[in-house]
């Protein structure tokens, strides 16, 4: 069962990649079928899980011994439990919807087959990531999604910007992978095992330093994959990929892998206060940074990307709060998966309607031309800013509450983040669908085909009711409790003032945005005379510039210096040595001047020398 979940999309990818042009005609349907059947297998697994008691819901599958060297024994084993199944359903569900959406979105691309193959590959890798029963196999999925992400970001390879963005994403992710490698190594050295169950069981024996180091390493890994500060820079560039990719990989699923990792390794974080604090700090920084970047972007996708960073910041922050937060981190992850995918698909639909223009300043008043998109995007908008009773409200509100309980400063961060979110989302909404039309003459906005709108509608429904469903019908807290543990807040009733305050902050953000962008005309060209803050936000808070200045440029100089050193230094030394010998030989050759007397003289000198040596030795 579990293996089939991964096997089906993997099979799809293999067939499409090896099949080549022969599969062009039906390849995309095949991919959708594979993804969908994986989803159905997931649903079936879920159903059977529901039928069992909470303790028996975990299924371990041992496929074969993967690596066994000395005491390093890694099985190729899968594990499906309450946490995994939530991810499985999100990945395959949203994944299938996005597959369907892509049929329409990529209809005119000559490499559509390859695109679907990569999507299937991604789904398989992501499933492996969440289904592995040990950290080492998780690593395979972890880099597998990185590969799929690389392939998909740089899918339009002829665009240099896309190729560069793909490479950047992979390399930055690799920095995060270093963290995961170190975490696995530390776990092996500390506990002698790398399985989830083994590590969880042994975690209690670990000393504070080891736990702290493992926690930091895992956090580094999470930062890479989830685009958290300071490894956030790749996510904005990743928007070079086709929009479905941004929706699936860079919003709903892959980027949340970091959250999964931290929740999965909760045994470590539970025991290390320091590591948890670090997680919270990183989450808080990213949450504000992402929101800040989102406020100034005119590129609709980059705006959403900033928002994604910010929302994942929420999740990471929640995960860092410990047992009180894990559940809400996952909860927010699930709702975010739905509404953010919906928003991205909506953005894709908008772009589809306006000749692939991504600049919101060229939109405006699209609500008339694209009704379905308007409504679905609107639902997503309401969900993300946290208007009750939409999905985002439930999950975000819980996080804000828990944050305030733990630490007022952290709570304030989340509250401010909520306000800023409301601001930039409203800005996006108004610039796109309201105001006067600002599009070019040759642009004729139109609604997208049904393959695209249907997934959007389904996701919009999820954004609207997913939160309610999960919280009250699914009782997610109880569902996840066996895996993550759950501690209800101690002062549950003491925060009655919080929800109204949050709503007030959100309303303020909406109102300010509406005041700025809704009631006044939006200039088609971005104004150049802006505050330093706006400029910083437009430049992704100078993340790239900092990377460039700290790593890239010195790195290139170092490389160049080393190349010079290698050719001129090492090789030059060797070459110089050879030349020296050659030169000496050429000189020495002159000693062979042809005069027998000269040779005789040398002999005489030699004889004298030998006599001298003999003399010395005898003394």
């Amino acid at each position, binding site marked *: 069962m579990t293996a089939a979940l991964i096997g089906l999309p993997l099979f799809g990818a293999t067939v499409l990649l090896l099949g080549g042009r022969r599969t062009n005609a039906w390849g995309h349907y095949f991919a959708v079928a594979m993804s969908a059947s994986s989803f159905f297998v997931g649903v079936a697994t879920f159903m059977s899980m529901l039928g069992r008691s909470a303790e028996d819901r975990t299924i371990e599958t041992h496929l074969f011994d993967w690596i066994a060297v*000395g005491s390093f024994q890694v099985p190729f084993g899968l594990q499906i439990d309450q946490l995994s199944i939530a991810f499985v359903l999100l990945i395959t569900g949203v994944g299938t919807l996005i597959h369907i959406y892509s049929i329409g979105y990529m209809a005119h691309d000559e490499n559509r087959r390859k695109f679907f193959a990569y999507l299937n590959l991604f789904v398989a890798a992501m499933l492996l990531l969440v289904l592995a029963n040990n950290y080492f196999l998780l690593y395979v999925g972890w880099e597998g999604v990185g590969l799929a992400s690389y392939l998909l970001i740089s899918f339009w390879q002829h665009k240099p910007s896309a190729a560069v963005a793909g490479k950047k994403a992979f390399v930055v992710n690799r920095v995060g992978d270093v963290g995961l490698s170190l975490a696995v*190594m530390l776990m092996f050295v500390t506990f002698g095992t790398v399985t989830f169950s083994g590590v969880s069981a042994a975690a209690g024996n670990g000393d504070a330093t080891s736990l702290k180091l493992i926690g930091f390493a895992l956090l580094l890994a999470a930062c890479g994959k989830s685009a958290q500060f300071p490894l956030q820079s790749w996510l904005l560039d990743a928007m070079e990929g086709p929009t479905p990719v941004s929706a699936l990989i860079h919003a709903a699923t892959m980027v949340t892998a970091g959250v999964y990792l931290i929740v999965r390794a909760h045994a470590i974080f539970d025991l290390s206060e320091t590591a948890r604090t670090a997680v919270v700090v990183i989450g808080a920084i990213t949450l504000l940074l992402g929101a800040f970047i989102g406020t100034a972007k005119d590129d609709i996708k980059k705006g959403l990307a900033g928002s994604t960073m910010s929302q994942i910041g929420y999740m990471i922050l929640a995960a860092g709060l410990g047992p009180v937060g894990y559940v809400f981190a996952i909860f927010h992850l699930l709702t975010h998966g739905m509404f953010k995918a919906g928003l991205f698909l909506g953005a894709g639909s908008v772009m589809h309607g306006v000749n692939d223009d991504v600049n919101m300043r060229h939109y405006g008043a699209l609500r008339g031309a694209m009704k379905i998109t308007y409504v679905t995007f609107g639902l997503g908008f309401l969900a993300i800013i946290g208007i009750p009773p939409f999905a985002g409200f439930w999950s975000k509100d819980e996080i804000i509450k828990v944050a305030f309980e733990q630490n007022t400063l952290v709570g304030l961060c989340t509250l401010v983040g909520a306000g800023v979110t409301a601001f930039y989302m409203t800005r996006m909404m108004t610039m796109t669908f309201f105001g006067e039309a600002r599009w070019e003459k040759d642009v004729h906005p139109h609604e997208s085909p049904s393959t695209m709108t249907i997934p959007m509608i389904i996701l919009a429904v999820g954004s609207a009711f997913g939160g309610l469903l999960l919280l009250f019908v699914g009782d997610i807290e109880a569902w996840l409790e066996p895996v993550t543990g759950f501690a209800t807040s101690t002062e549950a009733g003491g925060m009655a003032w919080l929800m109204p305050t949050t709503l007030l902050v959100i309303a303020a953000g909406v109102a300010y945005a509406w005041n700025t962008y809704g009631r006044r005309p939006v200039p088609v060209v971005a104004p150049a005379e802006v505050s330093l803050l706006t400029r910083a936000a437009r430049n992704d808070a100078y993340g790239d510039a900092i990377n460039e200045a700290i790593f890239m440029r010195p790195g290139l100089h170092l490389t160049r210096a080393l190349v010079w050193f290698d050719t001129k230094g*090492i090789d030059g030394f060797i070459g110089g040595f050879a030349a020296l010998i050659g030169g000496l030989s050429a000189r020495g050759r002159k000693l062979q001047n042809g005069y027998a007397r000269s040779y005789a003289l040398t002999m005489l000198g030699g004889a004298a020398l030998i006599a001298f040596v003999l003399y010395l030795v005898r003394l």
Partner: protein
Amino acid sequence: MQLTTLMLIPLVGAIAVFLLPAAKETLAKQVALAVSIVTAIDAIRLALSLDNSSGAIQFVEKHEWIPAFGISWSLGIDGIAGLLIAMATILVPLIIVAGWWDAENSGRGTVKGFFALILALEVCMIGVFAATDLFLFYVFFEVMLLPVYFLIGRFGGAQRSYAAMKFLLYSLVGGLFMLASLIGLYVVSARTLGQGTFDFVTLTGLHMDAGTQKTLFLGFFFAFAVKAPMVPFHTWLPDAAAEATPGTSTLLVGVLDKVGTFGMIRYLLPIFPDASHYYAPIIIVLACISIFYGALLAIGQTDMMRLIAFSSVSHFGFIVLGIFVFSSQGLAGSSFYMINHGFSTGALFLVVGYLASRRGSKKISDFGGVSKVAPVLAGVLLISGLSSLALPGMSSFVSEFLVLIGTFSENRVAANIATVGIVLAAFYILWMYQRVATGEPSEEVNSTVSEINKRELVAIVPILAAIIALGIFPQAALKYINPAVSDLQKYVSVVDPTPAFGALTEGIGS
């Protein structure tokens, strides 16, 4: 006699190909291919029939050669050597197919000469891995240089004579130091045992004082470090690899250089255990430098072949690192890495060779947009590259991680440094791919770079298949390596450290 037979097959083949009339070029190729395939099958059969419950040397055969000096023709393989031989013999038919027209394209030398040299090289490669007499090993170690010298010097690119001479001189200088140590070892054995010997098994039991060990160790190590190649003895490799034909480069970097690391694992550790421990910290530092230096230099290269060569310097750093931390994961990882590196670097050299033969240039800047004109070729380049950067799912990942984890349990600082090396690996591979395969193809690329053809595909697909298969089922190879590794650990008297806070009572972890 099985190993001697295995060597005789290509030897007879080489002579037969050489004796063919020069005009019968196709026949020469076919004979060479057939012979190499037979050899590969026989080698695989041998490797699979190894007893994987014992780390002892198997298929032992011994015939007196120069009894006066205790030199004998003695052969034998353990799991590591067996797999290396299998890897080498698998690569040979593939590079023959890949280099089907290399001899003609070089415009010099005869076709039959080219293929006879490759087969002759194969003989030496088998011999050097199978020898269990140190003198015999030395003989193969040196004789092996000659076919390569001619393969580079005769069939190589513009700078071929420079590269061939540099290669030869470096290797010879290294070999000279080894010879000195070898003679020293003989003298020591004569003094200790009463009768001098070069026999590996006898020498492993030799009790030498630490000072002697240290001195003799250095001679061997220098030869192996030049061969492997470690920074700062590496500069011959980029030149040689860039000037040779792709097939030769594959054998050179994929197999020949392994002799260095194989020598370390086979001879240095068991014969000089004390010296190995003594020098390990320095060598680990050198290995870390190699990892970084190779990777950074690879980033700075403008020539694809040189880039791969420098990436190999980096990979050899990993291999050496794994050997000298002495942990079972490190040793097994290094042994496995040798095999994987042969495949992944071979694939890269071949595919870059395909590109270069089309475009007539190895310069990265001469390419761009290949994925648009030749998507499969670009895809093959990407897969080979991913294998080189140790993507999980590929065999090189397993070995690289084993090395890292083996290092981590012994030396955290080195492991941390080496781990950062994997980021650089991602950078140089993907940057090369970006510059070669993506973007809009230029006029020249459009007109010259055609899609990969069947012959080329046949040559490279088995390598890629092996990489992926071993990545998913590494145990298929590791089970042969493990017993040899545990024997090695006995020689150097090292026991793997136990986990600091393991939950052993849980019984979890298998």
